[in-house]
């Protein structure tokens, strides 16, 4: 028998060590994530299990009154509506703009686009949200105040700040999506007698549609999750946002506003955790949505490969 065959070599030991490192790192990450999920979940349901708030009321009522412990009136409906409204408005404003910029970068003028516009959008991507909020506060609010009267704070201000914030997100993802369409498709379309416009609409946009949708979903997720910048310009009043200039509050802005002002294990604190839980569920949904869109388009392609 050859004894060497059973001896562990240096390489095998290295391999084992490497594997150990990777698995322990993975375990740490996994434990942290699970712990966080458990923490948010257990704290988040305390509102309903300990403080006996009706779950249905929490989803459908619009008051946020945690002071009267005898008769608390607590509901996240107005917050959810405001979150949805500001997000929707922001995405509606930004998506066409982002698409135009992306098309400009990829098709119309790759030179100027690639050297100036794209680095610019990537720069915008890295600016912290507090700066966007600050810009909104000092430039946008006075402008809205002069233009429409009132305080200027409110849903519209928040939506516009969000629109600016997600512009680089959607643009850079849209650029990636458009660049993902093989050049050969464009060449073939031109050689069949297409105009540039037809190539853009019927080849580029059509083929990259699923990835463009994912870009928009990521924009939605970022807008929905943004707290600080929104809080700075929205006026922070829990009420249904009936007009564009109504001061309101979103799920996230309410969280940031009240975070420092509650005592642990009180209703006021637990209610905030419930908001956090709600946000967690929402972002999970956005992620699943993006995955679903991608999986569907990929499976379509792999079937056809």
């Amino acid at each position: 028998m050859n004894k060497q065959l059973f001896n562990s070599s240096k390489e095998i030991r290295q391999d084992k060590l490497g594997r150990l490192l990777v698995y322990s790192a993975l375990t740490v990450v996994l434990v942290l994530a699970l712990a966080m999920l458990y923490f948010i979940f257990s704290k988040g349901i305390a509102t309903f299990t300990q403080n006996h708030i009706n779950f249905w009321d929490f989803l459908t009522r619009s008051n946020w009154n945690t002071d009267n412990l005898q008769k608390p009136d607590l509901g996240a409906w107005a917050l959810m509506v405001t979150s949805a409204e500001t997000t929707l408005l922001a995405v509606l404003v930004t998506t066409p703009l982002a698409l135009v910029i992306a098309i400009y970068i990829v098709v119309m003028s790759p030179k100027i686009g690639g050297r100036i516009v794209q680095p610019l959008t990537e720069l915008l991507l890295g600016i912290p949200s507090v700066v966007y909020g600050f810009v909104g506060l000092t430039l946008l609010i006075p402008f809205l105040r002069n233009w429409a009267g009132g305080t200027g704070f409110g849903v519209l201000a928040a939506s516009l700040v969000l629109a600016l914030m997600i512009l680089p997100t959607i643009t850079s993802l849209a650029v990636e999506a458009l660049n993902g369409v093989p050049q050969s498709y464009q060449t073939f379309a031109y050689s069949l007698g297409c105009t540039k416009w037809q190539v853009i609409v019927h080849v580029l946009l059509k083929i990259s549609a699923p990835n463009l949708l994912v870009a928009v979903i990521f924009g939605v997720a970022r807008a929905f999750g943004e707290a600080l910048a929104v809080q700075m310009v929205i006026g922070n009043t829990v009420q249904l946002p009936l007009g564009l200039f109504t001061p309101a509050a979103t799920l996230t802005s309410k969280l940031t506003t009240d975070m420092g002002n509650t005592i642990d294990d009180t209703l006021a604190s637990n209610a905030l955790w419930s908001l956090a839980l709600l946000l967690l569920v929402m972002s999970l949904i956005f992620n699943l949505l993006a995955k679903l869109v991608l999986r569907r388009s990929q499976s379509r392609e792999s079937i056809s490969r």
Partner: protein
Amino acid sequence: MANKQQQTEITTRHVNVYYGAKQALFDVNLAFPKYQLTALIGPSGCGKSTFLRCLNRGNDLLGHTRVSGEFQFEGRDIYDQAVNVMQLRSQVGMVYQQPTPFPFSIFDNVSFSQRMSGEKNPHKLAAIVEKSLRQAAIWDEVKDNLQQSALALSGGQQQRVCLASVLAANPKVILLDEPTSALDPVATAKVEETLQQLKANYTIIMVTHNMQQASRISDQVAFFLDGKLIEFNATKKIFLHPQEQMTSDYLNGKFG
């Protein structure tokens, strides 16, 4: 009245092409007879694709190219300011080396050019799709799956679907850049057979690296070397009695 066989479809004179500062074609003069198949041969990098791209103004898309010379097509200069480039490209269709069908259904691929020029009538589109697929000799293989993605087809089938897409645009001239280099012998034979049938109604110009292929299906052969046209003659003459030493060297595998 001139005999159908002797009319020329495209005449080029003094063609020079530059990529930036680099000259890729030098004073090329060629005339392509109507309803014949002309093969362009020559070693890699000698400018065959470049020349082919001149004929449908494909070089315009590359940006840094400059083309000079005369290109007569149906009594007009292809590079005339007044020429509608989209119209020209649908009349001078191009099939590429790698099959490039869009990731759409076979039907949407073949009907693409007609839909882009505004045809909406589904019956007319269906008729054009069928006719083009038949011409490209792939109708029988795909007629039951027209809604299937074109990418699900084999390479040879994809290449013939691309050919059908080009035919659906109603071209007069078909340019092919090494259309069979990615195909196996069976698929190649199919494409060759198709081309021979198409010759009755179309003028065909084809780049090929396959000398047997050139001798099998072409009527004329143009031999390029380092951006210059070395010899242009009937296929038989080129292969049996080349006039130039370089041509016979190339055909005998001495270089390239």
